């Protein structure tokens, strides 16, 4: 395999060539093909489970896309996915391999709960303070591994990953111990937040719209920063070629630091939204998040580094979560079904990555060739 853009392999009249750039149309086609393959493979799994795949997909389609309640549930799940996903888009663009959105989300939830339960603030300031605290807590949880990477060269994937579990046990400790609610009757959750610390919902749904607006604004802001400001350029260069960035005296340290803070902070905001918009209390980690921090990796990957694309991909993955509810109620399938979708989609996406940089050209063999 040489790198010179000549013909690589011939299949019949097609010539497969290496390509340095991936035009959007090819990205779209390849992504769509990956998704289609993922759904086909999932159909096999359903069949093995004993559910008719056609029935399964029809049920999902009718109950999530054609039912207002189902669609709203998808949107509700898309909120944390978009926030965490946009953060990861930024992080991945700068080659900060943040796998720790789950833990950063939990830290945001913890900080929000701390403010909601204990801060003697006037009612009007409560929610803003919770979002601020959540952003800072989530951000700091990401800054720690970023610093270790920048200063000591410690592998960021492993540290961010490990800190997820530390966050889980931090939450468990709080709800079993110091923050266990006086009204929890011995169960492991905190007291209910006071009313002013709860986010309003769109009537008839469970969509906490302030967080949704925040997420959309966050995606727009990230897109603007990446494409229209002097900040975006170093982020992109640092990501594409850190050596070059250093050579050009770009502030690699500051860029990665800022990206880590923003990335963790966005995930933290997602955590605030979950406890203030959905649960109204701090509770077990697996109930606060259905693995949003991990699914956000798919959101970011599918968005191909584009914060605006993350709006679509977050909704898509949110609908997958909503389809988990549907399959559970209508087909008695366990919620784990969503993990089958998540895993397969991620697999096919990253496996097809390489295909983006090949183009297929119509070049029939001429006589004498």
């Amino acid at each position, binding site marked *: 395999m040489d790198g010179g853009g000549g013909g690589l392999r011939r299949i019949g009249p097609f010539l497969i060539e290496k390509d340095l750039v991936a035009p959007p149309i090819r990205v779209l086609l390849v992504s769509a093909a990956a998704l289609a393959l993922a759904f086909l493979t999932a159909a096999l*799994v359903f069949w093995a489970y004993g559910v008719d795949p056609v029935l399964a997909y029809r049920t999902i389609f009718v109950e999530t896309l054609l039912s207002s309640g189902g669609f709203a549930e998808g949107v509700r799940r898309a909120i944390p996915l978009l926030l965490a996903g946009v953060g990861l888009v930024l992080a991945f663009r700068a080659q900060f391999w943040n796998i720790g959105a789950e833990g950063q989300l939990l830290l945001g939830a913890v900080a929000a709960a701390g403010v909601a339960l204990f801060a003697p603030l006037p009612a009007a300031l409560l929610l803003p303070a919770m979002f601020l605290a959540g952003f800072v807590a989530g951000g700091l949880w990401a800054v720690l591994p970023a610093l270790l990477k920048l200063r000591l060269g410690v592998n960021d994937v492993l540290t961010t990953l490990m800190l997820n579990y530390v966050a889980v*046990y931090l939450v468990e400790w709080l709800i079993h111990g110091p923050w266990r609610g006086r009204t929890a009757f011995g169960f492991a959750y905190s007291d209910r937040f006071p009313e002013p610390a709860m986010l309003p919902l769109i009537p008839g749904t469970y969509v906490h719209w302030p967080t949704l607006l925040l997420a959309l604004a966050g995606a727009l802001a990230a897109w603007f920063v990446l494409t229209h400001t002097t900040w975006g350029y170093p982020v992109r260069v640092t990501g594409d070629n850190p050596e070059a960035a250093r050579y050009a005296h770009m502030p690699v340290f500051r860029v990665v630091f800022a990206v880590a803070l923003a990335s963790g902070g966005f995930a933290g905001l997602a955590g605030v939204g979950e406890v203030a918009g959905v649960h109204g209390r701090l509770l077990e980690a697996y109930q606060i998040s259905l693995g949003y921090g991990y699914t956000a990796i798919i959101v970011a990957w599918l968005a191909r580094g584009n914060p605006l694309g993350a709006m679509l991909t977050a909704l898509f993955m949110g609908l997958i979560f909503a389809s988990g509810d549907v399959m559970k109620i209508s087909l008695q399938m366990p919620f*784990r079904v969503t993990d089958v979708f998540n895993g397969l989609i991620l697999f096919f996406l990253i*496996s097809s990555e390489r295909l983006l940089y090949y183009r297929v050209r119509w070049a029939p063999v001429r006589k004498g060739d």
Partner: protein
Amino acid sequence: MDDLVLAMLVRALAFGTPILLAGLGEIYAERSGVVNLGVEGMMAVGALAAFAVAQSSGSPYLGVLAALLAAALVSLPFALASITLRANQYVAGLALTMLGLGVSGLLGKPYEGAPLAHPLPEAGFIVTALLLAVLLWFFLQHTYGGLVLRSAGENPETVDAMGIDVYRVRYAAVIFGGAMSGLAGAFLSLAYRPSWADGITSGLGWIAVALAIFAAWHPLKAVGAALLFGALYHLSYRLQAAVSPEFLKAMPYLFVVVVLSLSALRKGPSGAPESLGIPYVRGERR
């Protein structure tokens, strides 16, 4: 007091066994240059395969065999994506974890909660794990095969130069790691619990990943690390009145962050293979 220490040691060994088994597999995969974060998923698949086969055939040994095969099988798509297609290893591993947990959670539904009629003794697995640790250490450090495996992770070009296919070495290591995770899963569903339920692995796979790092990718040190992690887990129940269990349970994960930072700080070798996490492209210079 001696009884207490002995009891602790026995329980530490029992809890340490699945993380040791899976951790040894992960050490091999990583020594060949491939980080597989899919341990949790492979372990879940192994646990289910073991339970389903043991329950329907009545033979727990067939169950163990099924676990080895099933987990090795699910490691294949990961190997394909991360080695042949050179996808990001970390993300491919996460995908494997999601897929393994999802597929086992779905297909295991009919077995959920049902206890096993003929469980296997824990001791057999414990002894196997300890023996395997010694064997794998010997193979890695003192045989030609071990040298090839290590070279694939340190300096794959030399392996290529020796006329050995780097891909094949890495595939073998990943598949072996899968089988070891499957064995760990079989221990859980056939001996330790003995039953199957969604979430049976409860994060043990991630502790195994942590163990590989904490043990500096060394099979014998892995035994000590497994004992330490196992003791922490046991103590979280023994010392419930005195120390909060969550603190002890979070320790293994914190240890990894600390160990990675300390070895980086000393500028000394963390024991990490040179080419860990880097896909190999034949004939391409880095």
